[in-house]
C-alpha cells in the first residue's frame, strides 16, 4: 500500500488491531493517525469498541455443572480405556499400509478376533444384573437401570433420620454453635468450615449445633439449624456402597443425580449426590417445604464439594495409585526407573 488516505485508513484499521498487516502498512497507519485528528479519534473509538466487545463477551462462561459434567465424561472415557494408540516413531507408514504387510497381517487379524470376543463378553456382562452403569453419551437417553443405579439406599435414609433425631434431642432452646470443630478434618477435609459454606443458603436460619456424629459404619458432618421452632439438619456423609440401593457405587453422572426424597416416621429427607458424598437435609417440615429448603441450604454445599472433588479427583483414582505402585515395584526390582 503506497498511499494512506482517510478512506484506506478506515478500511484497514481493524486489520491493524488484529496484527494482520505488513510492517510497512502498520507504519503508514501510525504515520497517518499522527497527522489526522479525525482518524486518530476513529482509531481510539474502534480500539474502545474492540475492548468493549472483549469485556462483554467474557461474561459468557460455561456453567460449573457443565464443566463438571465434561470432566466426569473425560475421566470416564479415559478410565474405560477409550484412547487412541500413541503413534510410535516407526508407524509413519500408517496402519492401513501395515495391514498388508504379511508380518503384521496375522497378528492384526488375531487382535481383531480378540476384540470381537471381548466385545461379545462385555455385551453379555452389560446384560447381567447388578453391573455398574457405563459412562453416558450426553445425547443418549439414560436407561432405567442407569437411573436406578443412582438411587440411595433406605438404610442411609434411616441412618440420617436417626442421626437427626438423636442429635436434635440434645439441642436446647438457647443452644448456639461456635462452628464446625477441627476434628472434622480427620473425618472429611471437604467439610472443614462446613457451617461457613452452608451460611450462604442458611439465611434466616439459626445454627444450633455443628459436629461430627454417627457410628463406625456411617459418620456424618452434621449441622443443625433452628427456624420458627423447627430443627433442620444438614448432613454430609460418604457415598459408599451402603449408601446406594444396589450396594455398588456407580460412575457419577451429575445430570442424572437429581434431588432424591424419602420419608421416615414424621421426617422428610431430601438428598443430593456428588461423586464421593451425599448431602442430606432432614426435618419435620412438610415435604414441599423440606424440598424447597434443601435447594437453598444444600446447593452451596454441593457446589463447594463438587469443586473440591473435581480438583482432587484425577490424582486420587485408586486404580492408578495402586498400579503406579506396582510399576514402581517392578521397575525397582529390575533396577530400572520409570521413564
Amino acid at each position, binding site marked *: 500500500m503506497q498511499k494512506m488516505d482517510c478512506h484506506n485508513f478506515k478500511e484497514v484499521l481493524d486489520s491493524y488491531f488484529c496484527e494482520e498487516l505488513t510492517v510497512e502498512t502498520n507504519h503508514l497507519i501510525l504515520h497517518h493517525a499522527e497527522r489526522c485528528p479525525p482518524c486518530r479519534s476513529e482509531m481510539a473509538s474502534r480500539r474502545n469498541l474492540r475492548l468493549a466487545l472483549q*469485556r*462483554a463477551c467474557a461474561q459468557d462462561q460455561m456453567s460449573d455443572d457443565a464443566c463438571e459434567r465434561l470432566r466426569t465424561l473425560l475421566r470416564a472415557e479415559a478410565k474405560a480405556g477409550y484412547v487412541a494408540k500413541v503413534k510410535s516413531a516407526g508407524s509413519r507408514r500408517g496402519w492401513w499400509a501395515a495391514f498388508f504387510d504379511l508380518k503384521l497381517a496375522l497378528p492384526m487379524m488375531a487382535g481383531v478376533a480378540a476384540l470381537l470376543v471381548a466385545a461379545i463378553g462385555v455385551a453379555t456382562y452389560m446384560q447381567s444384573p447388578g453391573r455398574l452403569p457405563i459412562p453416558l453419551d450426553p445425547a443418549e437417553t439414560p436407561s432405567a437401570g442407569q437411573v436406578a443405579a443412582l438411587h440411595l439406599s433406605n438404610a442411609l435414609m434411616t441412618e440420617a433420620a436417626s442421626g437427626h433425631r438423636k442429635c436434635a434431642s440434645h439441642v436446647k432452646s438457647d443452644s448456639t454453635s461456635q462452628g464446625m470443630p477441627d476434628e472434622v478434618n480427620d473425618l472429611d477435609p471437604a467439610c472443614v468450615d462446613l457451617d461457613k459454606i452452608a451460611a450462604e443458603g442458611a439465611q434466616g436460619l439459626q445454627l444450633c449445633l455443628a459436629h461430627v456424629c454417627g457410628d463406625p459404619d456411617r459418620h456424618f458432618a452434621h449441622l443443625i439449624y433452628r427456624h420458627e421452632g423447627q430443627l433442620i439438619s444438614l448432613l454430609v456423609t460418604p457415598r459408599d456402597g451402603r449408601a446406594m440401593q444396589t450396594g455398588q457405587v456407580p460412575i457419577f453422572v451429575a445430570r442424572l443425580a437429581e434431588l432424591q426424597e424419602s420419608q421416615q416416621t414424621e421426617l422428610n429427607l431430601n438428598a443430593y449426590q456428588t461423586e464421593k458424598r451425599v448431602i442430606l437435609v432432614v426435618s419435620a417440615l412438610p415435604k414441599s417445604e423440606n424440598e424447597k429448603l434443601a435447594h437453598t441450604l444444600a446447593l452451596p454445599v454441593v457446589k463447594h464439594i463438587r469443586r473440591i472433588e473435581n480438583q482432587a479427583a484425577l490424582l486420587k*483414582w485408586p486404580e492408578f495409585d495402586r498400579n503406579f505402585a506396582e510399576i514402581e515395584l517392578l521397575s525397582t526390582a529390575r533396577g530400572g526407573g520409570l521413564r
Partner: protein
Amino acid sequence: MIEDSAQNQLQRLQRLQAFETEALGFTSQLYRVALRLCRDKAKAEDLVQETYLQAWRSFHRFVQGTNLRAWLYKIMFNVYYSGQRREKLQFVGTEETIAETIAYDPPTPQQLTDEEVLAALEQLPKDFQVPILLADVEELSYREIADAMGIPIGTVMSRLHRGRKLLRTELTGYARNAGYTISK
C-alpha cells in the same frame, strides 16, 4: 499382564492430565463461539462437551507446539457442521442488508456500554457474528479462522469487513437513540 495393564493405565492418566492441563482452559472461549452458533445455552454446552470428547479421542494426532486452541475450534466447527448436515454457515437473507449498508462506512461511536455492544453483536447474522468473535474477541488470526471454519481466507476477510460495518451501523443507532454525538 498386570504390568501391561498398569502401564497402559498410567499412560492414559498421564495423557489425560496433559490434555486437561493444556485444553480445559479454553472451555469458556469455545463456549462463547458455540453460543453464537447454537443460540441456546444447553446446546452450546453440549457442543463444547462433544468437542472435548472428540479432541480427547484425537489428541494423539495433535502436533505439540502448534496452536491447540485453533485445533479445538476446528474440531468444534466440524462437530457443528456434521450436526447441521454439513451445511456450512451461509448467507441467509442478509444480502439486502449488506447492499444497503456496504456503501456507507459508519463512524464508531465514542461512548458505548458493554451491554449495548453485546446487543448490537446479537443483531448480526451469525455468519458475521462468528468471524468477528473469533478475530476481535478470541484474537485468532485470519488464517486460523479460515482453517477452523473450513472456508477460504478471502471469505473470512470479506465477512469480517462487512460484519464490522454492520456492527458499527447497529451501534450508531444505539448511540443516537441514547443521545450520544457521533463524530464525523
